């Protein structure tokens, strides 16, 4: 297998996590980013700086990654397809609304390989906190390819989910002054991947952790890992905080998030089958001890992270099946009232950042239609089902409790 990897999406996770792991193992990196401006900047500069926080160290280490190629999928589509068709490995780390464009890239790559009779495997690792993204991608690809091409795709192109544990934070001003293309992350030692999804060999030498039952693990990671940060972000914003460190220091926020996490664990256990060992294995060294110190206050990383980033795109994060509503619905259906998950969801409906399109849309809708309708719409709750109607009411109650200054006419 060639020691090359195409990294689709050159954002925080692409540059600061996946590229870092493959670069460490001596792989040549080809960035496929949407923007021509970004691709040119990477090409022209020829390097970018990684600022990485290790453990609980207050200051990051810094180093460069260089010797890569970069193409724009928007403006250099043919070059991107060509590059992708020649590698054995690729990773995808984009926002969900980019999936249709990515599907087009994958479909054309498969088509090119099919026409050229290129039967070398291409294994794609999807690093997205979006449950079922590989199924969504495959569905879009299937709408583009012919049946024969799709058969080729299914035979030679593997798609599997990964668990992205590394924190990609917004760089501090001094970091972007030093290098406008820099990436700022907190360390995580490896990338858990779906061992059963590979068509070829698992990339040699790269710090990947092959695991089975990835479908359940991605849910577990989101529901019982990411939920904590989401809760702290939304609740922290209601108190006027800016950074996760401030939210972390606030007892009400911190312990509400901890309680929400416990509710989420209950909700997860009612539906899925991961054993305690498999759960521990999912988080690996990120768990750090029997009390799941991944959520431990003392163990919070020192990377400066903004609540606006952690809570960004509330439409996605408040949706049914995602990190708050997914476990909350399961809790309700299995006899536990998800008090703190509902509180976090309510806080999510108070989340506002003028630069966040998704948050803006929710606030507009709320203003026009009220909180009850907003919860039904964005949390995708079916009020014909008693448990879901009760959950809607609980979120609404929590919303009013967080916002006592609303007019009584709103009731």
């Amino acid at each position, binding site marked *: 297998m060639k020691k090359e990897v195409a990294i689709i999406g050159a954002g925080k996770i692409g540059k600061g996590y996946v590229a870092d792991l493959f670069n460490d193992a001596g792989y040549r990196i080809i960035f496929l980013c949407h923007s021509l401006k970004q691709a040119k900047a990477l090409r022209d500069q020829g390097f970018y700086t990684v600022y990485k926080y290790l453990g609980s160290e207050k200051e990051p280490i810094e180093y460069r990654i260089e010797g890569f190629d970069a193409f724009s999928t928007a403006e250099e589509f043919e070059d991107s397809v060509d590059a992708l068709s020649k590698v054995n490995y690729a990773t995808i780390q984009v926002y969900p609304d980019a999936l249709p464009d990515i599907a087009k890239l994958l479909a054309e790559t498969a088509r090119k390989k099919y026409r050229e009779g290129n039967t070398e495997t291409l294994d794609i690792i999807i690093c997205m906190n979006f449950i079922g993204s590989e199924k969504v991608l495959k569905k879009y690809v299937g709408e583009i390819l012919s049946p024969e091409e799709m058969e080729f795709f299914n035979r030679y192109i593997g798609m599997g989910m990964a668990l992205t544990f590394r924190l990609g934070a917004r760089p501090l001003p001094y970091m972007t002054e030093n290098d406008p293309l820099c990436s700022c992350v907190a360390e995580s030692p490896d990338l858990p991947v779906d061992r059963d999804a590979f068509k070829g060999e698992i990339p040699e030498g790269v710090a990947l952790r092959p695991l089975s039952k990835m479908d359940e693990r991605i849910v577990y990671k989101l529901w019982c890992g990411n939920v904590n940060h989401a809760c702290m972000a939304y609740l922290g914003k209601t108190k006027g905080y800016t950074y996760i460190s401030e939210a972390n220091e606030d*007892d*009400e926020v911190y*312990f*509400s998030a901890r*309680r929400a996490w416990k509710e989420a664990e209950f909700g997860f256990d009612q539906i899925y089958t991961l054993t305690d060992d498999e759960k521990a294995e999912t988080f690996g060294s990120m768990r750090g001890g029997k009390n799941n110190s991944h959520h431990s206050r003392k163990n919070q990383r020192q990377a400066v992270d903004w609540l606006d980033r952690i809570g960004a795109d509330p439409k996605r994060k408040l949706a049914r099946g995602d990190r708050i509503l997914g476990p909350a619905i399961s809790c309700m259906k299995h*006899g*536990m*009232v998800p*008090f*703190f998950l509902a*509180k976090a969801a309510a806080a999510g409906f108070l989340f506002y950042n003028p630069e966040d399109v998704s948050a803006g849309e929710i606030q507009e809708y709320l203003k026009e239609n009220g909180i009850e309708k907003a919860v039904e719409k964005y949390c995708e709750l079916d009020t014909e089902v*008693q448990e879901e*109607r*009760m959950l809607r*009411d*609980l979120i609404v*109650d*929590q919303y*009013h*409790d967080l916002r*006592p*200054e609303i007019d*009584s006419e709103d*009731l």
Partner: protein
Amino acid sequence: MIVGAGKLGRGYLADIFKEGYHLIFLETYEPLVRSLREQGSYTHFKSREEGGYDRYVYRDFEIYCTLTEEDKCIEVLARTDLGGIATYKDGFAPFGKLLAKAVKKRLEEGNKDPLDILILANSVSPDKVIREAMNEELTCEEKAFADEKIGLVQTLPFRGGYPPSEEMLKEDPLAVSTTDYPEIPVDEGAFRGEIPSDVPLLLLDKMTERLNAKIWTANIRGAIMAALGKQKGYTYIEEVNADEDILRQVAIGIDEAVTGALDHFGFTKEQFEKGRHKTILKGSRTTSDVLDRQLNNLKRKLGRNERMTGPAVACLKTGRIPFYITKAEALAFDYVSDTDPEAEEVRTFVKEKGIRDAVKHYCGLDESDIYERQIIDLIEAHYIDNVGRIKR
């Protein structure tokens, strides 16, 4: 004839009967009897819904002590045909025994007229307590007579009586102070004689269920106000009445209780509304009532079928989460009272055994029942959220 010359005896029953009826009080507390007799009057301060008070001075009443003037009391009971009783729960059985003596006298004297007694009590089936205590003293023939002629009429006592202010007491040391609810809902089927048309009575059915529902849907108001008001550092009901946010939460909490009550007691909304406390929630009422009084005897008020736990479970069973009832109940577990030692006992229990065990113990809830477990969960969650992190 009014048994009990306390706040509701003098401030509700007397008020209802003051037009066209001669008032005779029968009271256990001898010093009060003496004072009222010596003064010959007392002032009733009645707070208006829209604020301010009406005052009425009662004169020309009689008053006798049930302990030291028992014969006189029996004589009154033997000749009257209409009256009321407003005492605490522990007064019912002794009254039943006194009434038994009056029944015997009525029989002896050939008085076959009925006697109907309105019972003002925030407990269920006080009529049974009185009748059982009475019947224990009667022969079969006397019991039959009493069954036929003595009506023990349950009511919904919607008027609140509370300690008079210092100003009121300066004006009249024997003053009583109440709200101004204009009528008494009564059990129509319990009367033995003609129902008086010159007394503001609201005739209702299903009174036992209504009494339970009243505790759940009317008395809960004070409990929620006290719990939320104390959290904000208030002392008086008046302060809570000026707090829009608390009134909002109280209104929703009452609605949760009504939801539970309708389903649990089997009322339609129309049936229930007929006997419901009709009050304007927003607080313009002037009152010196203190929050502590609303949650006095805290252990009883946390009980399984009492004003918070009862409606909370019933509400949840209808598919509605009793968010504000359980919030108030959680705060009640951290209630600091100047007057009730039970509040300190409850707080100590929570400190030693944790909130969850405290809820199970005082609210009588069982984790093996899914609804009761969810109520425990809700109260515990509210406690953690509002009172702080407590180790289990």
